[in-house]
Protein backbone atom coordinates (compact mmCIF):
# COMPACT_ATOMS: atom_id res chain seq x y z
CA UNK A 1 0.00 0.00 0.00
CA UNK A 2 1.17 3.43 -0.84
CA UNK A 3 0.44 6.79 0.76
CA UNK A 4 -2.52 8.41 -0.90
CA UNK A 5 -0.83 11.76 -1.43
CA UNK A 6 2.20 10.36 -3.21
CA UNK A 7 0.00 8.13 -5.30
CA UNK A 8 -2.20 11.08 -6.21
CA UNK A 9 0.75 13.20 -7.32
CA UNK A 10 2.17 10.34 -9.32
CA UNK A 11 -1.15 9.77 -11.07
CA UNK A 12 -1.46 13.44 -11.86
CA UNK A 13 2.06 14.08 -13.13
CA UNK A 14 2.87 10.71 -14.56
CA UNK A 15 5.51 9.20 -12.35
CA UNK A 16 6.87 12.12 -10.37
CA UNK A 17 8.28 11.04 -7.02
CA UNK A 18 7.62 13.62 -4.33
CA UNK A 19 10.36 14.32 -1.78
CA UNK A 20 9.72 13.04 1.74
CA UNK A 21 8.95 16.46 3.22
CA UNK A 22 6.31 17.37 0.64
CA UNK A 23 3.41 15.43 2.28
CA UNK A 24 4.12 17.14 5.61
CA UNK A 25 4.17 20.62 4.07
CA UNK A 26 1.06 19.95 2.02
CA UNK A 27 -0.88 18.57 4.96
CA UNK A 28 0.23 21.51 7.14
CA UNK A 29 -0.98 23.95 4.52
CA UNK A 30 -4.25 22.10 4.03
CA UNK A 31 -4.96 21.96 7.76
CA UNK A 32 -4.11 25.65 8.22
CA UNK A 33 -6.35 26.68 5.35
CA UNK A 34 -9.10 24.42 6.61
CA UNK A 35 -8.88 25.82 10.15
CA UNK A 36 -9.09 29.41 8.92
CA UNK A 37 -11.90 28.95 6.39
CA UNK A 38 -13.92 26.56 8.52
CA UNK A 39 -13.67 28.73 11.63
CA UNK A 40 -14.85 31.73 9.59
CA UNK A 41 -17.81 29.81 8.29
CA UNK A 42 -18.64 28.44 11.74
CA UNK A 43 -18.58 31.88 13.36
CA UNK A 44 -20.91 33.22 10.70
CA UNK A 45 -23.19 30.23 11.12
CA UNK A 46 -23.15 30.61 14.88
CA UNK A 47 -24.20 34.25 14.63
CA UNK A 48 -26.99 33.46 12.19
CA UNK A 49 -28.29 30.61 14.34
CA UNK A 50 -28.02 32.64 17.50
CA UNK A 51 -30.03 35.33 15.77
CA UNK A 52 -32.64 32.81 14.68
CA UNK A 53 -32.98 31.40 18.20
CA UNK A 54 -33.26 34.88 19.69
CA UNK A 55 -35.70 36.13 17.02
CA UNK A 56 -33.07 38.29 15.39
CA UNK A 57 -31.49 38.19 11.99
CA UNK A 58 -27.80 38.14 12.71
CA UNK A 59 -25.33 39.85 10.38
CA UNK A 60 -27.11 41.19 7.32
CA UNK A 61 -25.16 44.06 5.80
CA UNK A 62 -21.73 42.82 4.81
CA UNK A 63 -21.22 41.30 1.44
CA UNK A 64 -23.33 42.04 -1.60
CA UNK A 65 -26.73 43.44 -0.63
CA UNK A 66 -28.53 41.15 -3.04
CA UNK A 67 -27.66 38.19 -0.85
CA UNK A 68 -29.38 39.74 2.13
CA UNK A 69 -32.46 40.63 0.06
CA UNK A 70 -32.74 37.07 -1.19
CA UNK A 71 -33.27 35.61 2.26
CA UNK A 72 -32.27 36.44 5.80
CA UNK A 73 -30.31 33.20 5.90
CA UNK A 74 -27.89 34.26 3.21
CA UNK A 75 -27.18 37.76 4.49
CA UNK A 76 -23.94 38.95 5.99
CA UNK A 77 -21.84 36.07 4.80
CA UNK A 78 -18.84 38.36 4.48
CA UNK A 79 -19.02 39.29 8.16
CA UNK A 80 -16.33 37.00 9.57
CA UNK A 81 -13.67 37.80 6.95
CA UNK A 82 -14.29 41.47 7.76
CA UNK A 83 -13.88 40.79 11.47
CA UNK A 84 -10.68 38.84 10.88
CA UNK A 85 -9.08 41.49 8.69
CA UNK A 86 -10.09 44.17 11.15
CA UNK A 87 -8.47 42.23 13.98
CA UNK A 88 -5.31 41.89 11.93
CA UNK A 89 -5.21 45.63 11.31
CA UNK A 90 -5.82 46.67 14.88
CA UNK A 91 -3.15 47.97 17.19
CA UNK A 92 -1.29 45.20 18.99
CA UNK A 93 -1.01 46.12 22.64
CA UNK A 94 1.32 44.39 25.07
CA UNK A 95 0.55 46.00 28.41
CA UNK A 96 3.57 47.20 30.35
CA UNK A 97 3.16 45.05 33.45
CA UNK A 98 2.57 41.69 31.80
CA UNK A 99 5.05 38.86 31.73
CA UNK A 100 6.13 39.30 28.12
CA UNK A 101 7.38 35.77 27.54
CA UNK A 102 4.25 34.06 28.76
CA UNK A 103 1.98 36.66 27.20
CA UNK A 104 3.44 36.09 23.75
CA UNK A 105 3.78 32.33 24.18
CA UNK A 106 0.19 31.57 25.15
CA UNK A 107 -1.61 32.30 21.84
CA UNK A 108 1.06 30.42 19.91
CA UNK A 109 0.68 27.44 22.24
CA UNK A 110 -3.08 27.36 21.98
CA UNK A 111 -2.88 27.56 18.21
CA UNK A 112 -0.24 24.83 18.08
CA UNK A 113 -2.52 22.57 20.09
CA UNK A 114 -5.42 23.32 17.76
CA UNK A 115 -3.21 22.51 14.78
CA UNK A 116 -1.60 19.36 16.15
CA UNK A 117 -4.87 17.74 17.09
CA UNK A 118 -5.83 17.37 13.41
CA UNK A 119 -3.11 14.82 12.75
CA UNK A 120 -4.94 11.53 13.44
CA UNK A 121 -8.45 12.59 12.38
CA UNK A 122 -9.59 10.36 9.51
CA UNK A 123 -11.88 12.10 7.07
CA UNK A 124 -12.39 9.45 4.44
CA UNK A 125 -11.00 6.32 2.88
CA UNK A 126 -10.29 5.25 -0.64
CA UNK A 127 -9.69 2.00 -2.39
CA UNK A 128 -8.88 3.58 -5.76
CA UNK A 129 -5.87 1.79 -7.24
CA UNK A 130 -5.34 0.04 -3.92
CA UNK A 131 -5.58 -3.55 -2.91
CA UNK A 132 -7.38 -2.65 0.33
CA UNK A 133 -9.08 0.59 1.39
CA UNK A 134 -6.72 3.00 3.08
CA UNK A 135 -7.70 5.66 5.57
CA UNK A 136 -7.20 9.28 4.56
CA UNK A 137 -5.74 11.24 7.44
CA UNK A 138 -2.61 13.26 7.95
CA UNK A 139 -1.29 10.19 9.78
CA UNK A 140 -3.62 7.57 11.16
CA UNK A 141 -1.71 7.03 14.39
CA UNK A 142 -1.75 3.76 16.26
CA UNK A 143 -2.68 5.66 19.43
CA UNK A 144 -4.91 8.23 17.70
CA UNK A 145 -7.59 8.65 20.34
CA UNK A 146 -5.07 8.87 23.18
CA UNK A 147 -3.04 11.38 21.16
CA UNK A 148 -6.05 13.62 20.68
CA UNK A 149 -6.86 13.64 24.40
CA UNK A 150 -3.20 14.22 25.26
CA UNK A 151 -2.83 17.18 22.93
CA UNK A 152 -5.91 18.78 24.44
CA UNK A 153 -3.97 19.22 27.68
CA UNK A 154 -1.72 21.67 25.87
CA UNK A 155 -4.73 23.97 25.68
CA UNK A 156 -5.00 24.03 29.48
CA UNK A 157 -1.36 24.98 29.69
CA UNK A 158 -1.78 27.79 27.18
CA UNK A 159 -4.85 29.15 28.93
CA UNK A 160 -3.19 29.00 32.35
CA UNK A 161 -0.16 30.78 30.91
CA UNK A 162 -2.35 33.43 29.32
CA UNK A 163 -4.19 33.97 32.58
CA UNK A 164 -1.07 34.18 34.69
CA UNK A 165 1.04 36.23 32.29
CA UNK A 166 -1.62 38.91 31.80
CA UNK A 167 -1.06 40.08 35.37
CA UNK A 168 -4.73 40.81 35.75
CA UNK A 169 -6.96 39.27 38.33
CA UNK A 170 -9.78 38.61 35.89
CA UNK A 171 -7.39 36.82 33.59
CA UNK A 172 -5.92 34.79 36.42
CA UNK A 173 -9.34 33.75 37.69
CA UNK A 174 -10.49 32.93 34.19
CA UNK A 175 -7.36 30.94 33.49
CA UNK A 176 -7.64 28.96 36.71
CA UNK A 177 -11.31 28.28 36.14
CA UNK A 178 -10.56 27.07 32.64
CA UNK A 179 -7.75 24.88 33.90
CA UNK A 180 -9.83 23.27 36.62
CA UNK A 181 -12.76 22.79 34.26
CA UNK A 182 -10.80 21.18 31.44
CA UNK A 183 -8.77 19.06 33.83
CA UNK A 184 -11.80 17.64 35.60
CA UNK A 185 -13.86 17.09 32.46
CA UNK A 186 -11.02 15.34 30.72
CA UNK A 187 -11.38 12.34 33.03
CA UNK A 188 -15.03 11.45 32.29
CA UNK A 189 -14.27 12.23 28.64
CA UNK A 190 -11.46 9.71 28.53
CA UNK A 191 -13.61 7.12 30.29
CA UNK A 192 -16.47 7.79 27.89
CA UNK A 193 -14.11 7.21 24.97
CA UNK A 194 -12.87 4.01 26.58
CA UNK A 195 -16.14 2.25 25.78
CA UNK A 196 -15.61 2.51 22.01
CA UNK A 197 -11.95 1.65 22.52
CA UNK A 198 -12.93 -1.60 24.20
CA UNK A 199 -15.57 -2.39 21.59
CA UNK A 200 -13.17 -1.81 18.72
CA UNK A 201 -10.06 -3.19 20.40
CA UNK A 202 -8.01 -0.37 18.95
CA UNK A 203 -6.99 3.23 19.64
CA UNK A 204 -6.66 4.22 16.01
CA UNK A 205 -9.49 6.41 14.80
CA UNK A 206 -9.40 4.82 11.38
CA UNK A 207 -9.84 1.37 12.91
CA UNK A 208 -12.72 2.65 15.03
CA UNK A 209 -14.60 3.77 11.94
CA UNK A 210 -13.93 0.56 10.05
CA UNK A 211 -15.13 -1.51 13.01
CA UNK A 212 -18.32 0.51 13.21
CA UNK A 213 -18.93 -0.06 9.51
CA UNK A 214 -18.59 -3.81 10.05
CA UNK A 215 -21.33 -3.69 12.68
CA UNK A 216 -22.01 -5.26 16.03
CA UNK A 217 -23.49 -8.77 16.37
CA UNK A 218 -23.59 -8.82 12.60
CA UNK A 219 -26.10 -5.94 12.42
CA UNK A 220 -24.64 -2.95 10.55
CA UNK A 221 -26.48 -0.03 12.17
CA UNK A 222 -25.94 -1.45 15.64
CA UNK A 223 -22.27 -0.99 14.98
CA UNK A 224 -22.41 2.78 15.27
CA UNK A 225 -21.03 3.21 18.73
CA UNK A 226 -23.78 5.70 19.41
CA UNK A 227 -26.01 2.66 19.98
CA UNK A 228 -23.99 0.31 22.20
CA UNK A 229 -22.27 3.11 24.08
CA UNK A 230 -25.09 5.65 24.11
CA UNK A 231 -24.24 6.85 27.62
CA UNK A 232 -20.67 7.34 26.52
CA UNK A 233 -21.79 9.46 23.59
CA UNK A 234 -23.87 11.69 25.85
CA UNK A 235 -21.07 12.03 28.40
CA UNK A 236 -18.55 12.73 25.66
CA UNK A 237 -20.71 15.42 24.12
CA UNK A 238 -21.19 17.19 27.46
CA UNK A 239 -17.50 16.94 28.27
CA UNK A 240 -16.62 18.17 24.80
CA UNK A 241 -18.71 21.30 25.33
CA UNK A 242 -16.93 21.84 28.64
CA UNK A 243 -13.53 21.21 27.08
CA UNK A 244 -14.03 23.88 24.47
CA UNK A 245 -15.28 26.40 27.04
CA UNK A 246 -18.52 26.91 25.19
CA UNK A 247 -21.68 27.92 26.98
CA UNK A 248 -23.27 26.59 29.16
CA UNK A 249 -19.79 25.83 30.46
CA UNK A 250 -18.19 29.20 29.72
CA UNK A 251 -17.27 30.25 33.23
CA UNK A 252 -13.69 30.99 32.13
CA UNK A 253 -14.92 33.87 30.01
CA UNK A 254 -18.10 34.82 31.79
CA UNK A 255 -18.65 38.43 30.78
CA UNK A 256 -20.68 39.33 33.82
CA UNK A 257 -18.00 38.40 36.32
CA UNK A 258 -14.67 38.08 34.59
CA UNK A 259 -14.74 40.63 31.73
CA UNK A 260 -13.36 38.25 29.12
CA UNK A 261 -11.57 35.73 31.30
CA UNK A 262 -8.10 34.71 30.27
CA UNK A 263 -8.23 36.77 27.08
CA UNK A 264 -9.03 40.05 28.85
CA UNK A 265 -5.70 41.69 28.06
CA UNK A 266 -5.34 40.28 24.57
CA UNK A 267 -5.79 42.50 21.54
CA UNK A 268 -6.04 42.10 17.81
CA UNK A 269 -3.94 39.29 16.34
CA UNK A 270 -3.31 37.42 19.59
CA UNK A 271 -6.98 37.48 20.51
CA UNK A 272 -7.83 36.30 17.02
CA UNK A 273 -5.62 33.27 17.55
CA UNK A 274 -7.49 32.37 20.74
CA UNK A 275 -10.79 32.81 18.97
CA UNK A 276 -9.74 30.79 15.95
CA UNK A 277 -8.38 28.01 18.13
CA UNK A 278 -11.60 27.91 20.12
CA UNK A 279 -13.75 27.39 17.05
CA UNK A 280 -11.25 24.98 15.56
CA UNK A 281 -11.38 22.93 18.75
CA UNK A 282 -15.15 22.96 18.65
CA UNK A 283 -15.08 21.51 15.18
CA UNK A 284 -12.45 18.97 16.21
CA UNK A 285 -14.60 17.58 19.01
CA UNK A 286 -17.46 17.31 16.52
CA UNK A 287 -15.18 15.43 14.14
CA UNK A 288 -14.10 13.09 16.92
CA UNK A 289 -17.71 12.52 17.88
CA UNK A 290 -18.47 11.71 14.26
CA UNK A 291 -15.56 9.31 13.93
CA UNK A 292 -16.05 7.58 17.27
CA UNK A 293 -19.82 7.45 17.64
CA UNK A 294 -21.42 8.17 14.27
CA UNK A 295 -19.55 5.84 11.99
CA UNK A 296 -17.22 8.42 10.46
CA UNK A 297 -17.28 8.57 6.69
CA UNK A 298 -19.42 5.45 6.28
CA UNK A 299 -23.13 4.86 6.01
CA UNK A 300 -24.57 1.46 6.97
CA UNK A 301 -24.80 -0.76 3.95
CA UNK A 302 -23.37 1.85 1.60
CA UNK A 303 -20.03 1.33 -0.08
CA UNK A 304 -19.35 3.97 -2.75
CA UNK A 305 -17.52 2.81 -5.89
CA UNK A 306 -13.90 3.83 -6.07
CA UNK A 307 -14.49 5.66 -9.34
CA UNK A 308 -17.67 7.03 -10.85
CA UNK A 309 -18.37 6.77 -14.54
CA UNK A 310 -20.14 9.89 -15.71
CA UNK A 311 -20.31 8.76 -19.31
CA UNK A 312 -17.99 11.36 -20.78
CA UNK A 313 -15.60 11.37 -17.85
CA UNK A 314 -14.58 8.90 -15.18
CA UNK A 315 -14.28 10.53 -11.81
CA UNK A 316 -11.45 8.87 -9.88
CA UNK A 317 -11.34 8.77 -6.08
CA UNK A 318 -15.13 8.92 -5.93
CA UNK A 319 -15.27 6.98 -2.68
CA UNK A 320 -12.86 9.50 -1.14
CA UNK A 321 -15.10 12.41 -2.13
CA UNK A 322 -18.30 10.67 -1.07
CA UNK A 323 -16.74 9.73 2.25
CA UNK A 324 -15.65 13.30 2.86
CA UNK A 325 -19.12 14.59 2.05
CA UNK A 326 -20.72 12.12 4.47
CA UNK A 327 -18.16 12.86 7.16
CA UNK A 328 -18.53 16.62 7.03
CA UNK A 329 -22.32 16.39 6.83
CA UNK A 330 -22.32 14.37 10.04
CA UNK A 331 -19.78 16.67 11.70
CA UNK A 332 -21.85 19.73 10.85
CA UNK A 333 -24.94 18.07 12.24
CA UNK A 334 -23.08 17.76 15.54
CA UNK A 335 -21.93 21.38 15.25
CA UNK A 336 -25.54 22.47 14.87
CA UNK A 337 -26.45 20.46 17.95
CA UNK A 338 -23.72 22.18 19.96
CA UNK A 339 -24.91 25.59 18.77
CA UNK A 340 -28.46 24.73 19.75
CA UNK A 341 -27.22 23.77 23.21
CA UNK A 342 -25.15 26.92 23.46
CA UNK A 343 -27.94 29.35 22.80
CA UNK A 344 -30.53 27.48 24.82
CA UNK A 345 -29.05 26.79 28.24
CA UNK A 346 -27.97 29.31 30.86
CA UNK A 347 -24.52 29.20 32.33
CA UNK A 348 -23.71 26.85 35.21
CA UNK A 349 -22.20 27.90 38.52
CA UNK A 350 -18.60 26.73 39.04
CA UNK A 351 -19.41 24.50 42.02
CA UNK A 352 -22.36 23.00 40.17
CA UNK A 353 -20.03 22.33 37.28
CA UNK A 354 -17.58 20.45 39.50
CA UNK A 355 -20.34 18.48 41.19
CA UNK A 356 -21.88 17.59 37.86
CA UNK A 357 -18.58 16.46 36.42
CA UNK A 358 -17.27 14.42 39.32
CA UNK A 359 -20.41 13.04 40.89
CA UNK A 360 -22.60 12.49 37.85
CA UNK A 361 -20.66 12.24 34.60
CA UNK A 362 -17.78 10.16 35.96
CA UNK A 363 -19.97 7.35 37.42
CA UNK A 364 -22.06 7.47 34.25
CA UNK A 365 -18.97 6.92 32.14
CA UNK A 366 -18.01 3.97 34.37
CA UNK A 367 -21.42 2.44 33.76
CA UNK A 368 -20.93 2.97 30.06
CA UNK A 369 -17.53 1.29 30.17
CA UNK A 370 -19.07 -1.69 31.97
CA UNK A 371 -21.84 -2.01 29.38
CA UNK A 372 -19.31 -1.84 26.58
CA UNK A 373 -17.13 -4.49 28.17
CA UNK A 374 -20.12 -6.83 28.48
CA UNK A 375 -21.12 -6.21 24.86
CA UNK A 376 -17.58 -6.75 23.65
CA UNK A 377 -17.40 -10.00 25.61
CA UNK A 378 -20.67 -11.21 24.09
CA UNK A 379 -19.40 -10.30 20.65
CA UNK A 380 -16.14 -12.09 21.28
CA UNK A 381 -17.72 -15.25 22.65
CA UNK A 382 -20.69 -15.68 20.30
CA UNK A 383 -19.62 -13.91 17.12
CA UNK A 384 -15.88 -14.29 17.22
CA UNK A 385 -13.23 -11.62 17.52
CA UNK A 386 -13.73 -7.95 17.92
CA UNK A 387 -16.73 -6.47 16.19
CA UNK A 388 -14.50 -5.66 13.22
Amino acid at each position, binding site marked *: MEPIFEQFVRDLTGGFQVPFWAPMLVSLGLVLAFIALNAMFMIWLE*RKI*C*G*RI*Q*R*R*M*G*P*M*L*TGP*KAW*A*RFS*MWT*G*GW*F*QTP*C*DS*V*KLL*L*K*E*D*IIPAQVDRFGFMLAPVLVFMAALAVYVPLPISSTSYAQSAPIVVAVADLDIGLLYVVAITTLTILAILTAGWASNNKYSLLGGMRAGVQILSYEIPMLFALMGPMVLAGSLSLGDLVLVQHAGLFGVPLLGWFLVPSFLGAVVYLICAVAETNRPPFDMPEA*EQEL*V*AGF*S*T*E*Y*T*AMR*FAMFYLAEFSNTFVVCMIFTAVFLGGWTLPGFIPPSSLNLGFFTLPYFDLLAGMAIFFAKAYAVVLLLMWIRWTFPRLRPDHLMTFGWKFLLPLSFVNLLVCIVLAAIQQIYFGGNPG
Partner: protein
Amino acid sequence: MGLMDRIPAYVDRLPGGSVVMAPVDWAINEVQASSMWYMLFGLACCAIELMATGAARYDFDRLGMIFRATPRQSDLMIVAGTLTLKMAPRVKLLHEQMAEPRYVIAMGGCTTYGGPFYHDGYSVLKGVDKIIPVDVFIAGCPPRPEALLNGCLAMQEKIRRNKLGQPRGPAIHIPPTAGRFSLSTGTAETERDPQIPG
Protein backbone atom coordinates in the same frame (compact mmCIF):
# COMPACT_ATOMS: atom_id res chain seq x y z
CA MET B 1 -1.07 51.26 14.09
CA GLY B 2 2.47 52.52 13.97
CA LEU B 3 3.25 51.08 10.58
CA MET B 4 -0.16 51.86 9.16
CA ASP B 5 0.30 55.52 9.97
CA ARG B 6 3.66 56.00 8.33
CA ILE B 7 3.45 54.02 5.09
CA PRO B 8 0.57 55.91 3.42
CA ALA B 9 2.38 59.21 3.89
CA TYR B 10 5.24 57.88 1.78
CA VAL B 11 3.09 56.10 -0.77
CA ASP B 12 0.87 59.10 -1.31
CA ARG B 13 3.85 61.24 -2.28
CA LEU B 14 4.92 58.89 -5.06
CA PRO B 15 3.55 59.51 -8.56
CA GLY B 16 0.35 57.54 -8.87
CA GLY B 17 0.44 56.82 -5.17
CA SER B 18 -3.08 57.98 -4.59
CA VAL B 19 -4.29 55.48 -7.16
CA VAL B 20 -2.70 52.77 -5.08
CA MET B 21 -3.98 54.11 -1.83
CA ALA B 22 -7.61 54.57 -2.84
CA PRO B 23 -8.57 50.87 -2.98
CA VAL B 24 -6.52 50.19 0.14
CA ASP B 25 -8.36 52.96 1.93
CA TRP B 26 -11.67 51.62 0.65
CA ALA B 27 -10.93 48.07 1.81
CA ILE B 28 -9.69 49.08 5.25
CA ASN B 29 -12.60 51.44 5.82
CA GLU B 30 -15.13 48.90 4.63
CA VAL B 31 -13.70 46.26 6.94
CA GLN B 32 -13.64 48.58 9.93
CA ALA B 33 -17.12 49.87 9.28
CA SER B 34 -18.51 46.36 8.95
CA SER B 35 -17.23 45.13 12.25
CA MET B 36 -17.51 47.70 14.96
CA TRP B 37 -17.38 45.75 18.20
CA TYR B 38 -18.74 47.95 20.93
CA MET B 39 -17.74 47.93 24.53
CA LEU B 40 -20.19 46.51 27.03
CA PHE B 41 -20.78 49.29 29.48
CA GLY B 42 -23.64 51.59 30.33
CA LEU B 43 -23.87 54.45 32.76
CA ALA B 44 -27.52 55.38 33.18
CA CYS B 45 -30.91 55.25 31.51
CA CYS B 46 -29.43 55.42 27.99
CA ALA B 47 -27.93 52.02 28.70
CA ILE B 48 -31.45 50.58 28.80
CA GLU B 49 -32.01 51.84 25.26
CA LEU B 50 -28.59 50.46 24.32
CA MET B 51 -29.66 47.05 25.58
CA ALA B 52 -32.93 47.33 23.68
CA THR B 53 -30.99 48.12 20.54
CA GLY B 54 -28.86 45.05 21.01
CA ALA B 55 -31.86 42.81 21.60
CA ALA B 56 -34.25 41.10 19.24
CA ARG B 57 -36.35 43.87 17.71
CA TYR B 58 -33.54 46.20 16.68
CA ASP B 59 -30.56 43.86 16.61
CA PHE B 60 -27.13 45.46 16.53
CA ASP B 61 -25.70 42.25 15.14
CA ARG B 62 -27.06 42.92 11.68
CA LEU B 63 -24.63 45.81 11.40
CA GLY B 64 -21.90 43.37 12.44
CA MET B 65 -21.79 44.95 15.88
CA ILE B 66 -21.28 42.60 18.80
CA PHE B 67 -20.31 43.54 22.29
CA ARG B 68 -16.97 42.77 23.85
CA ALA B 69 -16.64 43.06 27.60
CA THR B 70 -13.02 44.12 27.53
CA PRO B 71 -11.79 47.43 26.12
CA ARG B 72 -8.78 45.69 24.60
CA GLN B 73 -10.94 44.02 21.97
CA SER B 74 -13.55 46.67 21.28
CA ASP B 75 -13.48 49.31 18.55
CA LEU B 76 -16.39 51.45 19.52
CA MET B 77 -17.24 53.03 22.83
CA ILE B 78 -20.88 54.00 23.24
CA VAL B 79 -20.97 56.34 26.22
CA ALA B 80 -24.57 55.69 27.25
CA GLY B 81 -25.82 57.78 30.12
CA THR B 82 -24.99 60.51 32.59
CA LEU B 83 -21.28 60.76 33.06
CA THR B 84 -20.53 61.89 36.61
CA LEU B 85 -17.28 63.53 37.52
CA LYS B 86 -16.37 60.53 39.61
CA MET B 87 -16.84 58.17 36.68
CA ALA B 88 -15.10 60.40 34.14
CA PRO B 89 -11.50 59.31 34.91
CA ARG B 90 -12.56 55.67 34.55
CA VAL B 91 -14.15 56.32 31.19
CA LYS B 92 -11.01 58.08 30.07
CA LEU B 93 -8.94 55.12 31.26
CA LEU B 94 -11.20 52.68 29.42
CA HIS B 95 -10.85 54.75 26.27
CA GLU B 96 -7.10 54.71 26.63
CA GLN B 97 -7.12 50.95 27.04
CA MET B 98 -8.86 50.46 23.70
CA ALA B 99 -6.67 49.56 20.76
CA GLU B 100 -6.43 51.89 17.77
CA PRO B 101 -8.45 52.54 15.66
CA ARG B 102 -11.09 53.44 18.24
CA TYR B 103 -14.30 55.37 17.89
CA VAL B 104 -16.64 57.01 20.36
CA ILE B 105 -20.38 57.63 20.20
CA ALA B 106 -21.83 59.99 22.77
CA MET B 107 -25.38 58.83 23.32
CA GLY B 108 -28.02 61.15 24.71
CA GLY B 109 -28.16 64.66 26.07
CA CYS B 110 -26.13 64.04 29.23
CA THR B 111 -23.04 62.87 27.43
CA THR B 112 -23.43 65.53 24.76
CA TYR B 113 -23.66 68.64 26.94
CA GLY B 114 -24.86 67.64 30.43
CA GLY B 115 -28.53 67.24 29.52
CA PRO B 116 -31.01 67.97 32.28
CA PHE B 117 -28.12 68.45 34.68
CA TYR B 118 -26.66 71.27 32.63
CA HIS B 119 -27.51 74.02 35.11
CA ASP B 120 -27.58 72.38 38.52
CA GLY B 121 -25.66 69.16 38.09
CA TYR B 122 -22.62 69.86 40.25
CA SER B 123 -21.50 66.26 39.89
CA VAL B 124 -22.02 65.79 36.17
CA LEU B 125 -19.46 66.18 33.44
CA LYS B 126 -21.00 68.53 30.89
CA GLY B 127 -20.05 66.77 27.67
CA VAL B 128 -17.94 63.67 27.27
CA ASP B 129 -15.92 65.39 24.54
CA LYS B 130 -14.16 67.29 27.30
CA ILE B 131 -12.16 64.17 28.12
CA ILE B 132 -12.18 61.96 25.02
CA PRO B 133 -12.63 62.70 21.31
CA VAL B 134 -16.16 61.98 20.12
CA ASP B 135 -17.14 60.98 16.59
CA VAL B 136 -20.92 60.99 16.73
CA PHE B 137 -23.30 62.81 19.06
CA ILE B 138 -26.83 61.45 19.35
CA ALA B 139 -29.48 63.76 20.74
CA GLY B 140 -32.43 62.56 22.82
CA CYS B 141 -33.15 61.88 26.45
CA PRO B 142 -32.71 58.99 26.05
CA PRO B 143 -32.51 58.53 22.26
CA ARG B 144 -34.75 55.87 20.81
CA PRO B 145 -33.09 52.71 19.50
CA GLU B 146 -33.78 53.95 15.96
CA ALA B 147 -31.76 57.05 16.70
CA LEU B 148 -28.93 54.96 18.09
CA LEU B 149 -28.97 52.75 15.00
CA ASN B 150 -28.94 55.89 12.91
CA GLY B 151 -25.93 57.08 14.87
CA CYS B 152 -24.16 53.79 14.23
CA LEU B 153 -24.89 54.08 10.51
CA ALA B 154 -23.51 57.62 10.62
CA MET B 155 -20.46 56.24 12.38
CA GLN B 156 -20.05 53.75 9.55
CA GLU B 157 -20.37 56.53 6.98
CA LYS B 158 -17.74 58.51 8.82
CA ILE B 159 -15.38 55.53 8.91
CA ARG B 160 -15.90 55.09 5.17
CA ARG B 161 -14.65 58.63 4.60
CA ASN B 162 -11.40 57.93 6.47
CA LYS B 163 -8.09 58.28 4.70
CA LEU B 164 -4.99 56.58 6.00
CA GLY B 165 -2.53 58.90 7.66
CA GLN B 166 -4.92 61.83 7.79
CA PRO B 167 -6.88 63.12 10.75
CA ARG B 168 -10.50 62.15 11.14
CA GLY B 169 -13.31 64.46 10.13
CA PRO B 170 -15.41 66.56 12.51
CA ALA B 171 -18.02 65.04 14.78
CA ILE B 172 -21.47 64.23 13.39
CA HIS B 173 -24.63 65.29 15.20
CA ILE B 174 -27.73 63.13 14.95
CA PRO B 175 -30.89 65.17 15.64
CA PRO B 176 -33.61 63.68 17.87
CA THR B 177 -36.03 63.44 14.94
CA ALA B 178 -33.76 61.15 12.97
CA GLY B 179 -35.46 59.25 10.19
CA ARG B 180 -36.79 55.75 10.57
CA PHE B 181 -34.39 52.92 10.17
CA SER B 182 -35.42 50.09 7.90
CA LEU B 183 -34.70 46.84 9.61
CA SER B 184 -34.92 44.69 6.55
CA THR B 185 -32.31 46.37 4.43
CA GLY B 186 -30.42 48.41 6.95
CA THR B 187 -30.82 51.65 5.08
CA ALA B 188 -32.08 54.74 6.75
CA GLU B 189 -35.18 56.78 5.91
CA THR B 190 -37.67 54.31 4.54
CA GLU B 191 -41.22 54.09 5.72
CA ARG B 192 -41.53 50.34 6.07
CA ASP B 193 -42.34 48.74 9.34
CA PRO B 194 -39.76 46.56 11.00
CA GLN B 195 -39.90 43.03 9.77
CA ILE B 196 -39.35 40.49 12.44
CA PRO B 197 -38.28 37.00 11.46
CA GLY B 198 -40.13 33.97 12.62
